[in-house]
């Protein structure tokens, strides 16, 4: 048990995933990474026109959001690079763009490997409907995606790759090459502890060449200890400063839109606290799980996190101690709050479980309000948030 589960999904950028793919022998378009307009122009000249300028950020749907431009001249490269570098895509600032030779394709496929939770096994997928959002295809016409489950003890047998490719209706001319790409993709998925490995689109050229025009590779962060070269590729990509701060503190944290700050222990109980805030007419500002066995400093860091969110008007701190001790939590709350001349937001505390009674005695009730049940604590925090909102309005 880790005291602090890291809340990070290790996603490779497209250019990083393509490096991994190319090392494994997959065909990817010629490309160079650019961080400035001038670099983009140089890159385009070395790659050769036409080129695609592609924002390197960890968000899906880059094309629709204006993060990918197809250009044919230096003037167009300048214009596209100026607009893409520094733009904000779904909350993430773009610092790098891939300048890539544009593939002249006749067909676009989808190939991917992911974990099928229900089956408890990996699944290889092939579809002739590449180049579009595959989750939409999966939702609207699942029969358009051919699925082949893999026994992890044996890997993807070559016959399974062939069955998937023929089953999906890939044309005969490229079937063997596409099956081979699927096999390599599975080997990478397996060897690199990926949760997902996808090529969408896998482009087919007029000469029947098979080229990975995009690349997705997400790595299981619990397995990074044995993927040191991939861990080294990790770039910080938090949507905002609070999520960055949570990463530094090692908290499981998700920022939401509301004004009731929530701190608790254990994912299920924290989710429940969020749901109760909503149930009693409030709006949760965040999910923050301090984990099991938290000591005073961690408790104090958690309060610091939630106070740093300018949307927060009131805080509910809910602990049901198993391995977490109520007295430790109470000491942490006191220490954190005693540092303030004035407590920035009203804090309601509910302690139950291990050493909860000792904790209640330790808590400085000049600084916090105490409630005996989860429901009462949430109701009070929701009222506090409304009062504060009313007062400042």
């Amino acid at each position, binding site marked *: *048990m*880790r005291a602090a*589960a890291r*809340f990070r*999904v290790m996603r490779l950028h497209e250019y990083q995933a393509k490096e991994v793919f190319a090392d494994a022998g997959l065909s990817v378009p010629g490309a160079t990474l650019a961080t400035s307009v001038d670099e983009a122009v140089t890159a385009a000249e070395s790659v050769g026109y036409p080129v695609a300028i592609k924002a390197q950020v960890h968000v*899906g749907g880059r094309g629709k959001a204006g993060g990918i431009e197809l250009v044919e001249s230096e003037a167009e490269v300048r214009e596209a690079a100026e607009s893409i570098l520094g733009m904000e895509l779904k909350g993430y600032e773009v610092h790098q763009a891939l300048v890539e030779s544009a593939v002249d394709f006749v067909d676009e496929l989808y190939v991917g490997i992911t*974990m099928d*939770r*229900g089956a*408890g*096994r*990996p699944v290889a997928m092939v579809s002739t409907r590449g180049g579009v959002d595959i*989750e*939409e295809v*999966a*939702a609207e016409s699942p029969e358009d995606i051919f699925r082949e489950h893999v*026994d*992890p*003890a044996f890997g993807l047998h070559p016959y399974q790759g062939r069955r998937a490719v023929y089953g999906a209706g890939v044309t005969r001319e490229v079937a063997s090459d596409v099956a081979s790409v699927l096999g390599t993709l599975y080997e990478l998925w*397996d060897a690199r*502890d990926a*949760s997902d490995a996808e090529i969408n689109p896998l482009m087919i050229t007029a000469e029947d060449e098979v080229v990975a025009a995009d690349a997705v590779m997400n790595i*299981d962060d*619990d*397995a990074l*200890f*044995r993927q040191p070269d991939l861990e080294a590729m990790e770039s910080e990509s938090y949507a905002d400063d609070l999520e960055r701060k949570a990463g530094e503190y090692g908290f*499981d944290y*998700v920022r*939401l839109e509301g004004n009731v700050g929530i701190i*608790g*222990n*254990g*994912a*299920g*109980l*924290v*989710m*429940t606290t*969020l*749901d*109760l*805030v*909503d*149930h009693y007419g409030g709006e*949760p500002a965040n*999910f923050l*799980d301090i984990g*099991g066995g938290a000591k005073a400093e961690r408790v104090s860091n958690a309060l610091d996190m939630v106070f740093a969110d300018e949307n927060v008007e009131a805080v509910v701190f809910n602990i*049901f*101690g*198993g*391995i977490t001790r109520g007295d430790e939590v109470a000491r942490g709350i006191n220490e954190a709050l005693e540092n303030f001349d004035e407590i920035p937001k009203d804090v309601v505390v509910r302690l*139950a*479980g*291990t050493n909860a009674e000792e904790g209640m005695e330790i808590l400085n009730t000049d600084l916090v309000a105490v409630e005996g*049940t*989860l*429901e009462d604590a949430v109701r009070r925090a929701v009222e506090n948030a409304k009062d504060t909102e009313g007062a400042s309005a």
Partner: protein
Amino acid sequence: MSAFVDESTRVIVQGITGGEGQFHTEQMIEYGTNVVAGAVPGRGGQEVAGVPVYDTVSGAAETEDADASVVFVPPTFAADALFEALDSPLDLVVAITEGIPTQDMTNVNKRLTEVDTRLIGPNCPGIITPGEAKLGILPGNVFESGNVGLVSRSGTLTYQVVSNLTDRGLGQTTAIGIGGDPIIGTDFVDALAAFENDPATDAVVMCGEIGGEDEEQAAAYIAENMNTPVAGFIAGRTAPPGKRMGHAGAIVSGSGTGTAESKIEALVEAGVPVGDTPEEVADSVKEML
């Protein structure tokens, strides 16, 4: 009666010499669990908390005639520890460890189909039959012996719901934490089947959460196979899609699977009342009995 464990269960602790392993071994023994051995490679012949330590799980299991194992081995070595446990003559393995690589669990999952051993977890608080035995890290003083079975994906939420039950005079036959990871051993259906077959269990509480389709499968099982009444709770109604809420398994995918709405709807259709709050869940159990 109870499900899976009772006072006669003879327990090995894998990783007994580590900080967590030793602390919780002491807690388990204090609660009354029959801990008969520890297993740690290279530490055979030592003693921890009055319990003999063996180098191998099979050595411990054979010499001490053990039935079950609790695993506190760190994630890096946990899959190997689980394979070792599954290659020993044990009925039950409870994996507490959090953060085991998913692909390791896929391999363990495959092995589970080849053996008769039951796995609970990983990333779970364990299992407790109040007044008899606990295998794991659950705080014993929260639980009371009684006739309600409980199965949950989350530890602290279990304690919360149990305290609401206990407040209403409703004790528990057995409480099972099945764990918050995407790939787990015992699932809701396995636990519900055990409670259905336990004559001492008169009602069951299942606490689910967003992510995956286990709750939907449980709903189908309840509708078709259960006479024992079930009350439900689903955490994560307010979770936004694409954000993992702490547990590796607790995520609503971009395509909209794994939502709280889908799970609640499936359960309600199966005749399971789903409470908006833990108190409401305890109230519906009270009405069932």
